């Protein structure tokens, strides 16, 4: 039997957190939650998640990108640089559109981008596929 996987949700929307937590737990995942980017980075070390769901627009309009950059490139979070990041936003604007032809994008490119509301089947499929790889 595979061990229980932990998903860290970083999102400032309490309602999104509540529904996503219930859903993921019903599917056998363990859930850790953070309501800001800063809290997310702290929880990363405590929860040691297998994947991260990361909202883009939190306190600032691009906070999620900053967090993704920190996880993937800052020495402090080196231990977690391979944790898959799934980015979320209410706006249908993928990072590729946001940073067209930009070198920055390579630094923060998420493993998957979803717009909200998240398609639950697609999310489950993505999670199981991504987590098999790790």
């Amino acid at each position, binding site marked *: 039997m595979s061990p229980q996987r932990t998903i860290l949700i970083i999102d400032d*929307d309490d*309602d*999104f957190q*509540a*529904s*996503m937590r*219930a*859903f993921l*737990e*019903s599917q056998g995942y363990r859930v850790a939650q953070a309501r*800001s980017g*800063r809290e997310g980075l702290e929880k990363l070390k405590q929860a040691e998640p297998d994947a991260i769901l990361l909202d883009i*627009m939190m*306190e*600032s*309009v*691009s906070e999620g990108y900053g967090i993704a950059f920190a996880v993937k490139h800052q020495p402090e979070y080196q231990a977690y640089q391979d944790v898959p990041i799934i980015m979320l*936003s*209410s*706006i249908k*604007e993928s990072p590729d559109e946001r940073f067209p032809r930009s070198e920055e994008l390579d630094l923060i490119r998420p493993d998957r981008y979803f717009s*909200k*509301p*998240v398609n*639950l089947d697609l999310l489950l499929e993505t999670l199981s596929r991504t987590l098999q790889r790790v």
Partner: protein
Amino acid sequence: MNRSVRPRDDEAIPGARVVVIDDDYAMRLSCRQILAKSGYVVEVFEDGAKGLEAVLAQRPDLVVVDLKMPGISGMDVIDRVHAIDPDMVVVVITGYPTIGSAVDAIKAGAYDFLPKPFTPDELRLVVGRALGRRRLLLESHRLELERELLKRRFVTFVSHQLKSPLTAIRQYMDVLIRLEGTPEAETQRAEWLERSRRRCDLMVRLIEDWLTLSRAECSELVRRREPLDLREALTEIVLACEDVAEKQEVTLDLALPERELVVAGDEGCVGVLFSNLVENAIAYNRPGGKVSVAARVERGEVCVSVTDTGRGIPEECRGLIFDEFFRVKEEGEPTPAGTGLGLPISRRIATEMGGRIDVESEVGVGSTFTVRLPLIPSEGADQEMHESQGALA
């Protein structure tokens, strides 16, 4: 004043980089020792040329410079440092006989000065304060950038604000449908419905506010200019806010003058203008706190102040609170539910009525919003007006 709350601008930057430029060897040595002990990264230089080279290459947070040096003078250093980075903070060291030049240095943009001889404590105090200033400048700069970004991406941002509640509600529905028939669905349903309802209400408010703002922008709202007595409007608003205030354990206090306070405007608009201020004063207060609404006549204007005993507005945010969608968010403090449009609407209405809103605030103590509107002299009130000028009720 509440001294238990440390003013934010006294907070230095940990690990801050300090460059000291002084031709006096002993001075360089002691500055380095004292400041390094306080945890700063210190570099010392014997003249302006070498010091500026380091400033250009390393962009320190603070430059401490002796005013009187051979070669490039301290005054020149101030100029050149600010040409490199206007947000870099400079403190000058002066001898007592040259204290007059300290004033010139401050005029030229130095933040503070240290008269020689000084004690280690004096040095630490001035450097700490200067670094607090630096922190404030950097933070303001960051917020300014954020504001620029917001302006450029305004349509995206508004869409996001409008879409977020909808996607949250939709997500509840999707998950409920998915979990239908399981015990989880039974436990969550009632709570999620209630939460969805609250999101709907907030969204309706957001759209209404948005509409109010755009109508105020076209001056449509304030076209109706009927004389109305602000005392009645304020009494109604304070009454209407009493329930909310009680829930938040905040006392409401209203002080009105005997005389009429007639302004020209639309009753509904005036209501919105002041309700926003009073509601904010309650929401950003603390349990046991107080909101005082006071009206008076000052130099031919009606002057209404709304004072709270809340958390106050950080200095770097004060210039931004009237921006659409700007919300003051502080680590560890809950942000009250709101649309981020209340203050912009209030300011807009005040401006359209020929008035203005000013804000004074102290972190940890509270804020006062003061609205000034042109007074319409009512019959027989001219005499009274002169008598009551500046007097509180």
